[in-house]
């Protein structure tokens, strides 16, 4: 998909795809034939540059044909470079400008509380975007309003465009920071399906406060030459690289 578009963010897409898979195929209460069903669980991809991972998941789930995936980023496509809720069926929020998704998810969670609805709201955060001030404004809001119907999942692959987080601007200690902001925090291996499953259940059972799942992930997961490589943040593979990547991903059963 990304290689066809010759543009996109393969590294950060691959690091969160296991999380998206668990959410859409196991945890979330959604109806692909009725994407705007008002009782559905919602998801905000705050790290909007991982859109290809979300699009692939939505297609697999049946929101639209997998054939459409090859139109990513192309003029007139329903799959915009960053998620556009007006274009793509199944998208709950428009994102792409970093740091804004948690606030949007809070709004959805507040609406759920107000309407006494049982739906849950998930938000996928990138590590680099924790450098945005708005994330911390929103972290304060979620705790203040006791949004226990909200689960944030941090795709912590440790790398951002200019290099490792710790070199660009250190975001650690994330766990202690969120705890200090009044959140319940769980740390897991973000590629271990069992751990992802358990963490989401623990978040559901946590009352009176929002939960952050810190998912330790590998940027470019599943593709040997992309794993932990900063260079694969925002570049598309060529044909040879694409074939090798697909071979490796299919071989690993992803």
């Amino acid at each position, binding site marked *: 998909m990304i290689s066809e578009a010759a543009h996109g963010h393969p590294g950060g897409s691959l690091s969160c795809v296991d999380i998206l898979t668990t959410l859409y195929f196991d945890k979330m209460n959604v109806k692909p034939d009725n994407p705007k069903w*008002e009782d559905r669980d*919602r998801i*905000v991809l705050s790290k909007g540059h991982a859109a290809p991972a979300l699009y692939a998941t939505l297609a697999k789930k049946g929101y639209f044909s997998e054939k459409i995936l090859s139109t990513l980023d192309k003029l007139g496509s329903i799959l915009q470079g960053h998620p*556009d*809720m*007006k274009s793509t069926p199944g998208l*709950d*929020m*428009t*994102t*792409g*400008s970093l*740091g*804004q998704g948690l*606030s*949007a*998810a*809070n*709004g*959805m*969670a*507040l*609406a*759920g509380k*107000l*309407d006494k609805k049982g739906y849950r709201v998930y938000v996928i955060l990138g590590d680099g975007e924790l450098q945005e*001030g*708005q994330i911390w*404004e*929103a972290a*304060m*809001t979620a705790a*203040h*309003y006791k949004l226990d119907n909200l689960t944030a999942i941090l795709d912590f692959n440790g790398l951002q465009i200019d290099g490792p987080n710790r070199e660009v601007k250190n975001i650690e200690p994330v766990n202690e920071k969120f705890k200090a902001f009044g959140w319940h925090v769980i740390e897991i291996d973000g590629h271990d399906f069992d751990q992802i499953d358990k963490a989401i259940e623990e978040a559901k059972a946590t009352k009176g406060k929002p939960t952050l799942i810190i998912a330790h992930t590998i940027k470019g997961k599943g593709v040997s030459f992309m794993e932990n490589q900063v260079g694969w943040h925002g570049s598309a593979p060529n044909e040879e690289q694409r074939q090798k990547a697909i071979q490796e991903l299919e071989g690993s059963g992803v």
Partner: protein
Amino acid sequence: MAMATREAYGKALVELGAKNKNVVVLDADLSKSTKTADFQKVYPDRFFNMGISEQDMMVTAAGLATCGKIPFASTFAIFATGRAYEQVRNSIGYPHLNVKIAATHAGITVGEDGATHQSIEDISLMRGIPGMVVINPADAEETRQAIFAAAEHYGPVYIRLGRMAVPDIHDQNYKFELGKGEVIREGKDVAIIATGIMVAIAIEAADKLKEEGIEATVVNIHTIKPIDKDLIVEVAKKTGKVITAEEHNIIGGLGSAVAEVLSEEYPVKIKRIGIKDQFGQSGSPKELLKYYGLTAEGIVKNSKAILKIS
């Protein structure tokens, strides 16, 4: 009677809240100044104080809107449109969400707080966002009706409100229509097109001009976007000379919008009255209006200049 449009906003919100259960209100620690505290008193469950975090407030409002709520997000105009510009643009404007941004303390009549708090660019910023409706009511009754109209309209709306009390121009018989200007006076010599607090001042100017035998048309453009092109062209045809008056930078606001319409449709001589591309300063609202030429005298002087009468 005189009342600040922010006062009228607070009262209108309470009235609207009773009629529409989907209306929710957000504020960023200025609820006593923006008057959203009026709503909070009656509907505490539907009021969210976001603290001093305008960016978070705007996107939280967006999230609420995706769930069918009609959020009114309020703070001072400088913060609503300046601090949170990109949030408004990307999380409200681009997804065309049903968020109403009701910003108070617009313009220089904020007064004593000075330039940091005096928004003179907000119309320009909001007007540039595709699909954003921009309303600048002139008095209490127009504000009340504009708030109801904004709630009726699906999509993002920016409503510009003021701190200072302004005279009543309209009574309950007035019918506010989104996107339609209002002719308040008819006169053949010059058209004064005004918005917000400048409408009352334009009427005062028209009275003064009349004493000198000059007949001015006065038009109230409460909806700056989408603008009432037909009416603007009509008054330009009738008078051949147009003055615009706004409490905003002359770049990007009403004057620019009118110039855009007329230069394309019916070019006539235009003079723009507003803040002349400079920052404000501390002072009383009245002193500031005088200092920056936003007075009846200022409009009279410019009208004579455009008519080449000394």
